[in-house]
Structure formats: structure tokens, C-alpha cells
């Protein structure tokens, strides 16, 4: 049975381990209530997936974590401090292609370093290294439009990782990819994240992806978004990204039932 984990009082002994915490966060837009008293936390090194029906405000939660939006009430803390401006310790990967079409791969990837003022030689070196890590060695001089969707996604990932963020915010990043490419990149992403000890907050529709990648799956209601339940899946063995193993079906069903109850009939 799933154990709901909701942050009630902050646990002081875990302070150093809490990377991201949402504390009774509410947010409105144009008179509509989007988030309603949402509270949860993400620990260092944890991989948390947020699942909810379309339009429920999941992206808004990510924007809050990135410091691109501020809550109407409640607080969003990153590493203990309230977020007041763009969160430069976090990397943000979206579904849309965010590569600059007029730059080639290597100058796209080194863009964050260029902005930080890193010297050219070092930028190029680090960009090459990270491109090798995501499996794109040899494609440095290509332009984005010359690459396939999956390759562009890897370039975006490389760009996100190059300035060594502690946290990754992912907004359905693989939604536009075909099924096979998606599974491959998901596996790569997981190994990179575990390798680097990254804290990850992933927003997704894809239940298999959530169960396969995350340590913990958080279920969000339809708008106005509230926390419904949390499922620990870290302990579950044999989580494949290509499909659901029979013994893990109950987790799938639980999430699926939740989604179904939040959209349409419910």
C-alpha cells in the first residue's frame, strides 16, 4: 500500500538533505486558482516524478522550483533559502526544442558557460566532454536542424548538464520522441543522474516513465492542483522503461486509477 508522505513540520535533522521544499504553496493566474496549498519536499539525490491530468499546474510547480514564478502564498525553498529570483543551480529541460537555431551544437552546449564568462578554450573542452557523455561525439559542428529529434534532445540535455546544476527540472522532456528513442534516452538520463548524484523533479504523463525512473511518484489532482498521494517505488525491483513488469502492475494501476478519476468522470 502506498505511504503518503506529506511535509507537515520540517524535520531539522534532515535540513541539509532537503533540496527543494514547497510549503503550502498557492498560486493564481487570471482569477483562476492553479495551485492550492501544495506541500512536498525533494531530498538530495532523489528522483521525484509528478503525475497529474493535463493542465493541472504541474508545469507551474516546475516554474516555481526554477524561480521563474512566485507563489501567491506559501513558500518555495531551495536548499533552505526562499527562492526570489531565477534558480541558477537548477537545469530545466522542456519538451520544446530550446536550442538556438543559428548556433551549431558545440556553441549551443557551451552557451551557459559563455554567459558565465568562462574562457573559450575551457568552454570548448567541457562541451566536448559532455557531448561525448551523451553519445554525440563527432556532431559538434552540426546545426540543430540537421539533427534528429532524439539527438537534439541529447544536445539540450548536454547544455543543461554542462554548468553542473545540482538539480534537474524536467517538463515532459521526452514526450515528442518516438517510443524507441525515448526509452534509450530515459535509460541514459537515469544513469547520468545517478552517476552525478543529481536531484530530479520530473513532470510527466507517462506512467511507465514515472515508475521506471523515479524513486517516488507524487500524484497531483486536477486544477486547482492538490497533492493526492505519494508512492514510493525506489524499492521496487525490475523496473523497465519499455513496459511494466507483471509484478509491478499494481503501481501502474493505482496511478492510472488516480488519473482517470481526475479526468472526465471522477
Amino acid at each position, binding site marked *: 500500500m502506498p505511504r503518503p508522505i506529506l511535509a507537515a513540520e520540517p524535520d531539522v535533522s534532515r535540513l541539509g538533505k532537503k533540496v527543494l521544499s514547497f510549503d503550502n504553496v498557492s498560486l493564481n493566474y487570471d482569477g483562476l486558482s492553479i495551485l492550492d496549498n501544495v506541500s512536498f519536499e525533494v531530498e538530495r539525490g532523489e528522483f521525484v516524478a509528478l503525475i497529474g491530468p493535463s493542465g493541472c499546474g504541474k508545469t507551474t510547480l516546475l516554474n516555481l522550483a526554477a524561480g521563474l514564478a512566485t507563489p501567491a502564498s506559501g513558500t518555495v525553498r531551495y536548499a533552505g533559502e526562499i527562492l526570489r529570483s531565477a534558480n541558477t543551480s*537548477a537545469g530545466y529541460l522542456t519538451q520544446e526544442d530550446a536550442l538556438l537555431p*543559428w548556433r551549431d551544437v558545440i556553441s549551443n552546449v557551451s552557451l551557459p558557460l559563455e554567459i558565465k564568462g568562462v574562457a573559450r578554450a575551457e568552454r570548448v573542452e567541457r562541451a566536448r566532454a559532455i557531448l561525448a557523455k551523451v553519445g554525440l561525439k563527432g556532431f559538434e559542428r552540426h*546545426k540543430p536542424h540537421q539533427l534528429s529529434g532524439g539527438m537534439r534532445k541529447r544536445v539540450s540535455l548536454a547544455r543543461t548538464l554542462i*554548468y553542473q546544476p545540482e538539480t534537474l527540472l524536467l517538463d515532459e522532456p521526452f514526450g515528442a520522441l518516438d517510443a524507441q528513442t525515448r526509452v534509450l534516452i530515459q535509460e541514459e538520463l537515469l544513469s547520468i543522474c545517478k552517476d552525478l548524484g543529481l536531484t530530479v523533479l520530473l513532470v510527466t504523463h507517462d506512467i511507465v516513465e514515472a515508475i521506471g525512473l523515479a524513486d517516488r511518484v507524487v500524484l497531483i489532482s486536477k486544477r486547482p492542483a492538490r497533492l493526492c498521494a505519494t508512492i514510493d517505488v525506489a524499492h521496487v525491483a525490475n523496473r523497465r522503461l519499455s513496459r511494466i513488469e507483471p509484478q509491478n502492475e499494481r503501481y501502474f494501476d493505482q496511478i492510472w486509477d488516480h488519473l482517470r478519476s481526475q479526468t472526465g468522470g471522477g
Partner: protein
Amino acid sequence: MQPSANPILVVTLRLLLLLIAIGLWQFLPSSVLDEFLWSRPLDVLAQMSSWIMDGTLLWNAADTLVTVGLGLVLGGAVGVALGLLAGFSIVTERLLLGPVQMLFALPKITLVPLFILWLGVGTQQHIVFTAVVVFFFFFFAIFNGIRGIASVHHNNFELFGASPWQMCRLLVLPACRGWIALSLRLAVPYAFVSAVSAEVVASTSGLGYLVKTSASVMNASGMFAAMIVLLIVSLACSLTINRYASNWARFD
């Protein structure tokens, strides 16, 4: 669908058309085409060559070209600067967009008398007037370009910790390149029209001045000579700019 026209036939017909027009111009009797008012091709050529000899054509063409060139540079610079300012925040947008749009709605030539009042009738004034006309093209180009930048880029740059200047240099200006290229193509012919318009209304030199003074002394040959030179120069500039500007827009 009709097949494409035969290129040889096309060129032949064009030449034929041109020859017929020139032929009629030269040979129609004065009762039909008053020589005094319309001149003849040969007389026009004679006037043109005499002007080339004594340098009139060169000086005046140079004046017009200088006006066009400097006007483009000045108008372009101010247009880009104010466009960036207007795109910078919603407040500056509201402050700047209204007056600019209002000014844009006026037929620009009606501003010439005011400019004459302020700056006289010399080349200086022509340059400023041309700059004002050109300004709008670049202002709207940058403004629309900024609006067209997907917000995901803006968000990412913020997360990378980019300063406003970096955002401008690394995101906005490259993204607007296509728009600027397009505007340049439109702006160059307009710059010509503006420069010549200012000259026709009031000036002491330039191709427009030549046309006007020729007409006022009933020198039809001179009038046509100046008009033809104007046409050639303006077409030459447009075509050159078009060729270079299309390279810029290539990545879009």
C-alpha cells in the same frame, strides 16, 4: 496548369515591347505626342551625356546616394535601439509603441515642411527625413522579432544567469536577424523614395532636385534624363541589397 513560358520567347517579347515603346516615343508626330512636353529618346540621351560630361549627373547622383546611405544607417541604428527598448519590458512597450504607431500612420512626406522649418533645405535635412522613414522598418522588425522569440528561450537564459545585455547580444539580436534582413530589403527602396521626395519638395541638389528644376524650366529632356538615371540607380541598389540580405535570412 500551363507550362512555364519559354524563356527565349519571354526575353524576345520584352525587348520587342521596349523597342516599340521607344520607337513610338521617338517617331510619333508632335501632334499626338507633344515634343515640347514629352521630349524624344534621342534628345533625352543627348541631355544625359551632356550632364555626364559636365559632372552634373555625378554630383547630384552622389548627393542622393549619400542621403540614402546615411539615412539608412541613422534610421537603422535608432530603429534597432528603440525597438530593443520597447521590447525590453511591458512598460517601455506601452510608452513607446503608441507614439511610434501614431507617427507611422502619417504619410511621411507631410513631415517634410516641418523638417524644412527645423533643418532647412540642405542635405542634412534630407538625411534626417530619410532616417525617420527608415526608422519605422527597423523598429517594427526588432519589436516583432522580440515578440516572436519563444518564451522557452527567455526562460533558459534567465536560468543561465544571463544579464540583459547578454540576452540582447546572444538571443535577441541573432533571433531578429531574419527580420532585420527582411526590413532592409523593404527599407532600401523606401529610403530612395524618401530621399528623392525630400529633394523634390525643397532642395539645392540631388536627383530629385534635377527632376524638379528641369520640369520648372520646361526642360522635358532633362526631366526624363534625371528620371531614368534615378530608376537605374534605385533598381541597382535594391537588387544588390536583396542579394546580400537573403543570405542573412537563410537559417530560418
